[in-house]
């Protein structure tokens, strides 16, 4: 019996202690007419059969593309020590650290994670993580709404459209009014954003680099928000954040990031990691778990979950959110990843990715009728306008073994010829030449 240790003798002994004759007697409360009408699932498999079955299933996915697809989710190299350490049973199979005496491994890791997030984003406080960045953006918006007691979010259309869809879904039954400010050929329209900030504005929400790869400075925008007692919320890309002007430097109140690029595999969509950090005065609005430092009975330093009065298990309907679990293991992976790379490693990762993007952009724009979408500064990702439908091109390129980028038309009407292309340090100049060559043949 897989994962069940009882021998027949033990079963009998235990039943007799309970005072019943059979296992079925334990379920007497469930009346006959409440029993399953059907239970038609496959029979159990041996571990060997199971492994073979899933190895076959995994083999039906194609993962050996030459890959230039990013769009918010990036294939950076993950040091193997991240797997080795995060898979240790003591981390993997531990519970939420409610018993701090026997959970210091997890608690200290989260404290270290919180510290690293604050330093990377240049903010005061971080929590122990949220589910993903879409979720972080929503919670950031709700923090702003609670803090300002206002209900309008001014959102840049150049924020990743998937995350904006999540914002819409999550806030649908809240008294939230989302004002989306159109982008300007892939650049954030800062004037329009400024103009959209009125006195009902709880927060302005932008992204850097934005969805199209454009890098900007939102200091002025956040100043404007402040004037209207609105908060500035910015979404950033952690790898690029190792070199870019920080949310703190721009005067943002809340910074969020998708932690996937810090040591999490792409895994077809999850689990990922919603990073969130804020200024000190917002910490009691921050949802989710937070670890704080303290001492034990003997005066030894240690860590506990703290500020739990904000949480659902105490405050129930009055909690700052309904969040119970975090992405504990994902946060652990990201702090291990950051510790292994350090500031220099992260910077080099960003720089090499950017360098390759420049090589690629140069070569691509030499192809006939291919041009950059705009003249904005960019990091490791940029958008090009093709002479043909980008969906069709991407399909043909995939047949040739390339994920050449993301055709943005499905999320932006009128941009059917635009392709969003990213590089990471795992790409090579050789791959770039192959891509340009193959793409050139299709135009």
């Amino acid at each position: 019996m897989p994962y069940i240790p009882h021998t027949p003798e033990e079963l009998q002994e235990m039943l007799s202690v309970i005072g019943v004759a059979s296992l079925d007697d334990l379920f007497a409360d469930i009346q006959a007419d409440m029993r399953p009408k059907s239970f038609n699932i496959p029979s159990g498999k041996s571990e060997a059969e199971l492994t073979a079955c899933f190895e076959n299933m995994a083999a039906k996915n194609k993962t050996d593309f030459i890959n230039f697809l990013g769009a918010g989710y990036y294939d950076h190299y993950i040091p193997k020590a991240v797997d080795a350490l995060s898979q240790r049973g003591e981390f993997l199979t531990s519970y939420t650290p409610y018993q701090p005496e026997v959970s210091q491994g997890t608690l200290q890791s989260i404290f270290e994670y919180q510290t690293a997030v604050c330093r990377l984003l240049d903010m005061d406080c971080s929590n122990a993580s949220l589910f993903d960045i879409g979720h972080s953006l929503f919670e950031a918006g709700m923090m702003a709404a609670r803090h300002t007691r206002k209900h309008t979010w001014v959102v840049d259309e150049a924020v990743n459209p998937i995350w904006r869809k999540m914002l819409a879904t999550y806030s649908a039954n809240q008294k939230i009014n989302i004002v989306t400010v159109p982008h300007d050929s892939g650049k954030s329209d800062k004037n329009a954003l400024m103009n959209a900030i009125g006195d009902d504005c709880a927060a302005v929400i932008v992204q850097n680099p934005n969805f199209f790869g454009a890098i900007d400075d939102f200091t002025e925008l956040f100043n404007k928000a402040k004037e209207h007692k609105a908060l500035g919320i910015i979404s950033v890309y952690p790898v690029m954040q190792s070199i870019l002007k920080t949310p703190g430097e721009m005067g943002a109140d809340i910074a969020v990031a998708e932690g996937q690029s810090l040591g999490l595999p792409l895994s077809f969509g999850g689990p990922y990691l919603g990073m969130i950090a804020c200024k000190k005065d917002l910490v009691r609005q921050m949802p989710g778990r937070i670890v704080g430092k303290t001492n034990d009975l003997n005066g030894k330093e240690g860590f506990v979950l703290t500020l739990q009065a904000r949480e659902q298990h105490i405050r129930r309907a009055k909690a700052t959110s309904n969040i119970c679990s975090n992405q504990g293991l994902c946060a652990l992976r990201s702090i291990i990843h950051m510790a292994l790379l350090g500031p220099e490693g992260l910077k080099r990762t960003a720089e090499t990715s950017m360098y390759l993007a420049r090589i690629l952009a140069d070569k691509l724009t030499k192809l006939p009728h291919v041009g950059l979408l705009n003249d904005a500064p960019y990091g490791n990702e940029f958008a090009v306008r093709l002479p043909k439908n980008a969906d069709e091109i991407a399909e043909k390129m995939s047949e040739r073994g390339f994920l050449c980028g993301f055709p943005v038309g499905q999320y932006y009407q009128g941009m059917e010829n635009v392709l969003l292309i990213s590089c990471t340090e795992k790409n090579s100049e050789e791959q770039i030449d192959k891509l340009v060559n193959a793409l050139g043949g299709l135009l």
Partner: protein
Amino acid sequence: MRTLFDKSVKGRTAVVPAMPKKHAEDMLPKSLLRAKPASLPELSELDVVRHFTRNSHKNFSVDGNFYPLGSCTMKYNAKVIEHIASLAGFSKLHPLTAQLKHGEQYVQGALQAVYEIEQVLCEINGMSAFTMQPMSGANGEFTGVMLIAAYHKDKGNKKTKIVVPDSAHGTNPASAMIAGYEIVNIASKDGMVDPKALEEALTDDVAALMMTCPNTLGLFETHLPEIVEKLRKIDALLYYDGANLNAIMGKMRVGDVGFDVVHLNLHKTMGTPHGGGGPGSGAVGVSERLTPYLPVGRVEKNNDGTYKLNFDYPKSIGYIAPFLGNFAVYVKALAYISRLGKEGIPRAAEYAVLNANYLRKKMDSFLHVPFDRMCMHEFVSSPPEGIKALDVAKALLEYGIHAPTIYFPLIVHECLMFEPTETENKDTLDNLVTLMEEFIKKGQQDAGFLQQMPLTTPLRRLDETFAARSMILKQEE
């Protein structure tokens, strides 16, 4: 206790990628760059490995310790499922591949996994459809309540309230609130929903009742058929909090008995590891009438046996996750279910309930067990007068056993809630009983004995008040 930052030495490096051919300053205007590098820790690879190896030893875990932790189902997490979820064919897959034109052909295995777990969860729970998007149990609750809201809105029902029994998990009211509802609490009676209180609460503006069954007292809700009937009358929906599903798998299907929505904590019932707090997966199942509102994209099977991704559901509530939820987590759950199969899934419930009742019987000589009837997969109890649940919990830590859930549900005095799960053996249960009986006896003779516990854990009791007051939430530079 030295942190990564304490051990950091400027200029020390671990996994350094090759030197870039250009630096940031040569590629971007300075105004767009950060003033100084982020003070992330600088260590060697050995430093990092040693740091986390040693710190891991400061954790209890299922791999090392028994966790009789009520409402959490800390069962064994099979090693084979970790192997399966980390197969390159899954882990290297970019989710947007599926959104390219005809890109589905490259992710057939992944779509198959999503389709199969949805199908198998439907069959186990008697539901019409499942969504795998919710990224945790609470996220599943939120999704479920959003689906309820969408249903009523679509039907033109004016509904503003959700009824939640007082024995429900704290996430229930919080989730309902975020989904825009007002909460009506109702009291329990003799461990069951009080039919009278329920009757009064069920006004026409009630959108749904959120139930946990077996409830958080570990008891099966015997009034279930009447409750269903009452709700149908006012077109209110019935929500099943699947946190306790481990008790009833194969014994009752929530769809069969009239529930409209159910969320499952796959990291509890379906054996995926808890990870020190996540990631989880809060799959949500619905009855026929709620299917139009499920999040998109949805995985469907073509006539030729291939799979596709469909976003064309105009009544959908939208995107709960950026893609299809915590894929790598529910692949583990699918592997677990496939391993156990038709025979093993009900068996898990049977032995979970066996273990709980065995513990209950063994402990009732020295603990107060308020409900002298068959429990399901967990039961509640109180220590003898004069002994605090907290002290019992801390004493168990000293003996290498994780604490039970304490002070929950609130309706039980000094509550100790035990859930041994089916994967623990009789010796382990007997050992728990022996130890507890012994130290509770000692505690009755000497009040200080339990209050000093634990003694030899990595740390002793921690000062939580100081933590909340001093708010040291990160290490200063």
